[in-house]
């Protein structure tokens, strides 16, 4: 308000605090894993870990795309619905294009994300609204077909992606590579700065000649492309595409991004944090059901833990206004 005199905190203490904050998500993850291992000793076994990593793969892909959009200060609600839509087209393309179907569907995703981004940026309406409309549109269009699901022929080359490479699920490698490449791009090229600049102070970014419009649109294109990829990954795992593919993944995706430490208000965050967030959400979600707690209480506990995890990982002290 007033000459918002620079918040002066002794540098050393502040650094410690920041470091602690930065690693809070990791600490939460470790705490969860310890808790689960105490309860079920084989939680850390290879089999369990393989399974965890495998099931986390699509969520990581969703969340990687979402991270970029959230860092820009936006949100994309259409990802889950679009993943279902994409999985259908993927299954349809596979007989003709083989592995190329994956590329085709991702391009389709990028194109559609671009459209959503253009509407958001050019018509200047909140991304929440545009993508809410997208959610309805893609969910509706996915239903416009005769069969409830389209099978991917079992001899198809794309199904080879479902195997394991030296014990690590291939899909997880794919997801991990995507996150890694995205993280590298954000770190090593100006794009990451543009994204953070747009998310923190769009006006200043614009007036510095940052390609604000392009950055935003690209973020949405990338996010929808990731959603398409995630949809294909689920389809490969299920060996078919259906409108319901990935349907339930929207809120876990946002939760993973935010719990990982990316501010929902934009500007602050990163793909690395999201990886941790994804693991937290996955360990929470599947962990609760495997350790055999009273399942009646599972939802209540899940909700409570989401809040606790968020409270621990989100640096409230940096937010002057919490919304």
């Amino acid at each position, binding site marked *: 308000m007033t000459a918002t005199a620079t918040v002066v905190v002794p540098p050393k203490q502040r650094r410690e605090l920041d470091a602690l904050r930065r690693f809070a998500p990791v600490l939460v993850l470790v705490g969860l894993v310890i808790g689960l291992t105490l309860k079920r000793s084989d939680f850390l076994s290879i089999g369990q870990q393989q399974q965890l990593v495998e099931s986390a793969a699509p969520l990581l892909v969703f969340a990687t795309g979402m991270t970029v959009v959230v860092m820009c200060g936006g949100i994309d609600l259409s990802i889950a619905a679009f993943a279902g839509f994409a999985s259908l087209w993927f299954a349809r393309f596979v007989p003709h294009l083989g592995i190329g179907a994956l590329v085709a569907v991702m391009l389709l995703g990028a194109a559609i994300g671009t459209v959503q981004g253009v509407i958001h940026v050019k018509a200047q309406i909140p991304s929440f609204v545009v993508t809410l409309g997208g959610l309805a549109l893609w969910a509706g269009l996915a239903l416009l077909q005769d069969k409830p699901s389209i099978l991917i022929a079992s001899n198809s080359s794309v199904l080879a992606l479902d195997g394991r490479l030296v014990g690590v699920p291939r899909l997880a490698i794919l997801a991990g590579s995507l996150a890694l490449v995205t993280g590298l791009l954000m770190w090593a090229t100006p794009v990451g700065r543009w994204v953070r600049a747009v998310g923190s102070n769009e006006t200043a970014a614009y007036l510095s000649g940052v390609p604000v419009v392009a950055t935003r649109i690209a973020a949405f294109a990338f996010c929808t492309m990731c959603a398409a990829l995630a949809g294909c990954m689920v389809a490969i795992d299920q060996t078919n595409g259906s409108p319901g593919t990935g349907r339930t993944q929207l809120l876990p995706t946002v939760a993973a991004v935010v719990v990982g430490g990316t501010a929902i208000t934009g500007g602050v965050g990163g793909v690395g944090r999201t990886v941790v967030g994804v693991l937290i959400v996955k360990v929470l979600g599947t962990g609760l059901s495997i350790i055999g707690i009273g399942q009646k209480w599972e*939802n209540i506990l899940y909700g409570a833990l989401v809040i606790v995890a968020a409270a621990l990982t989100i640096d409230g002290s940096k937010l002057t206004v*919490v919304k």
Partner: protein
Amino acid sequence: MSIDARPAMRSTGVGTSPRRLGIFARRRTANASAVRARATAGERVLKWGPLAALALLCMFFAWRAERFATVDNLKNVLDQSAVLSIATVGITFVLLLGAIDLSMEGIMSACVMVGALLVMNSRNANDWGLFAVIPVVLVGAAFGLANGLITTRLKVPSFMTTVGMSAVGLGVAQLLFDGDQPRVLDRPLRAWAIGRVFGFTRATLVAVVCIAIGVVIQRHTRLGRYATAIGSAEDIVALSGVNVRRYKALAFALAGAFYSIAAVLLFLKQGTGNDELAVNVNFAAITAAVVGGTLLSGGQGGVLQSIVGVLIVKVLENGLLLLDVQPALQRAVQGVIVVGAVVAATWPLRHRLRVVK
């Protein structure tokens, strides 16, 4: 340092330069009123745009769908809007803060189950009749208050708080459900609830009363006015000595109370308590509020605007159904029209330096 101010003060003194100041003032006012006119043009669109969209939709459906413009159908639309309206009144207060509430389904499910188990039902010996509303509202308000307290005290963004709280609410509902759906056996109560007054269902009337209460709270109470103020400039409100956290928490609690009333209507209309009755209400309510002009950025819009949004959503739903649009397409069309409506309503506000997130 400003020479433009100093000569006047130094040479002739502040008090003796009214003539020049007068000129200034007039020029300034003319200029300011020009700015004002522009601003209000935008504001006017934001205010009346949704209403115009609603009118256009109604006209279109009246023209294309033969049964749309019948009294019976319009009463129906109002009846079908009742539950969503009340829930939207609630979420409007949260949106005015600039926060978001995704816990509506959880809270409503919990309230549905509490209510259905308190009135005369097939599961237990309770028979609270209409008095069941009191504990149900308390439950809803308590959930909302929990949202508010967690958001304000632990500084967790409302998005995350309410996602978590929704799961908690659903969990509570499932605990209470316990695999056995309670049927409402209180015939007089149900008859009252689905009965009609002047051809309008009681649900409609309850909704109208709730909307009226919502308008009064929003416009004439501290809670409502502060919620709007907090949404547009939280730090300023805090500097004025207002206990911002308290009013934020209260706004969430108020929202919870409204959800609970919507939940009561819901289970009375359905005649059963089921944890799935409230599915999809949350996004519908947010869509309605935003379409009506209660923006997610906070501080703008209000109860009446949100209700216009509810009517747009419901008229659309009703009209598309009457138009024989293929069922699978109905949702898709709704999505497109909602985005189109918001684009049209906010088009004049566009500006190169405008930041929209």
